[in-house]
């Protein structure tokens, strides 16, 4: 039984890789809620969590990345995110579909990743906005004044996040090849 508890160097590197992804997610979450929570950039609050989830999902593939997206979006929802239920569905399904699209038609390089990140951000924000709009707590004009700038400002963080995810992804590569 003790033999089964032995962790191989390859497994250690996998644990390290996913721990770093989780820390990156936590860092994005803290930046979003603590640092930028009460400050705006160009009049809007950036949305960093979808950027991290999408980048990890696209680089790691639909299965492993999808599971990461599901767990982190669930955690994001439980941490008190606005309309968190929408986030669970969107932040899992859109990156998974994006990852499938990348592996089938495109490549998981920077530009497709940026495009899918923008689609994820836009879908999530639009669904939340529509919920608020139909319940009468949001004016329609804020779609243009707040939602679109929020998506664009959040997408500005994508190159940095993409680079970090790419570096983390390389951990354990030697064993896999």
């Amino acid at each position: 039984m003790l033999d089964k508890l032995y962790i191989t160097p390859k497994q250690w590197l996998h644990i390290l890789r996913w721990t770093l992804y989780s820390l990156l997610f936590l860092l994005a979450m803290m930046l979003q809620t603590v640092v930028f929570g009460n400050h705006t950039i160009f009049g809007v609050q950036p949305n960093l969590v979808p950027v991290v989830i999408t980048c990890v999902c696209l680089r790691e593939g639909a299965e492993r990345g999808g599971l990461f997206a599901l767990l982190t979006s669930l955690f994001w929802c439980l941490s008190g995110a606005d309309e968190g239920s929408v986030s669970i569905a969107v932040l899992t399904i859109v990156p998974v579909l994006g990852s499938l699209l990348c592996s089938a038609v495109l490549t998981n390089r920077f530009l497709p990743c940026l495009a899918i990140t923008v689609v994820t951000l836009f879908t999530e924000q639009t669904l939340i906005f529509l919920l608020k709009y139909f319940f009468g707590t949001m004016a329609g004009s804020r779609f243009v004044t707040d939602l679109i700038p929020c998506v664009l400002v959040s997408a500005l963080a994508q190159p940095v996040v993409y680079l970090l995810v790419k570096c983390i992804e390389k951990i354990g590569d030697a064993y896999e090849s």
Partner: protein
Amino acid sequence: MKLIVVLALILAIVTAISSGLFGTTWAEKAVQTVLTPIRSGFSSISRQIERYYNYVFAYEALEAKNEYLEQRIMEIENQVRSADALERENAYLRELLNLSKLHDDYHYCDAYIVSWDSSNWKSTFTIGKGTNAGLETGMVAVTQYGQVVGTISEIGTNWAVVTTILDTSLEIRASIASSGHIGVVQGAYSSGEVGKLRMTYLPSEAVLRNNDQVVTTGSSVYPKDLIIGYVIDAGYDETGVAKYALLNPAADFDTLEQIYIITDFISE
């Protein structure tokens, strides 16, 4: 992969239904309880960096001066507001409406803000105290100057979520201090009015002037005469029979770090 997508949909539906039926679930409470110390740590580091930055750029002296002047303005405004109210009340009520006496029955609990809701469509923040400090949902949060910040909407052992008065979901019965006209204040939701408040259901004969103070009317939730904001614009609403006023919130949400929760007061 299909399983992940199906699981995501099921979890989305389950969390939506459970939060709708039961409010804050045990899972949310557990996550928030774990996150609060991390957020507190991040928040204090962030504050330190911000203070250092301000120090470097020599804003500290200006800030202190600004704080002193704000306090002076609040003292003077309190005196003016008392005078406005005294004009409308008889001699006996004048004694009762003396602010210092009124505030004797308040019991406060101070708390630091550890995180803000990051959504552009909602205005809430989390504080680092909860039921362990005697807080409950529905309690009112104010600044050190008695300006209304919001109410506690969710609570856990070591955390509480405060929905601010800027959120469109919060409605407060309020009155114009100088004239006594009563209306309902809530967060303004139009694009040009972000960060402002909207006072509705004001009678058509209400006379509204710029910088008129708007205060709470007093209820089992809100103590009387807490300052909500100042009138900056007014007009007739869509029906044409009632007036509305656009208000600047009295509390400065941009620099808010510490708040005071009124844990007990004598409601009139």
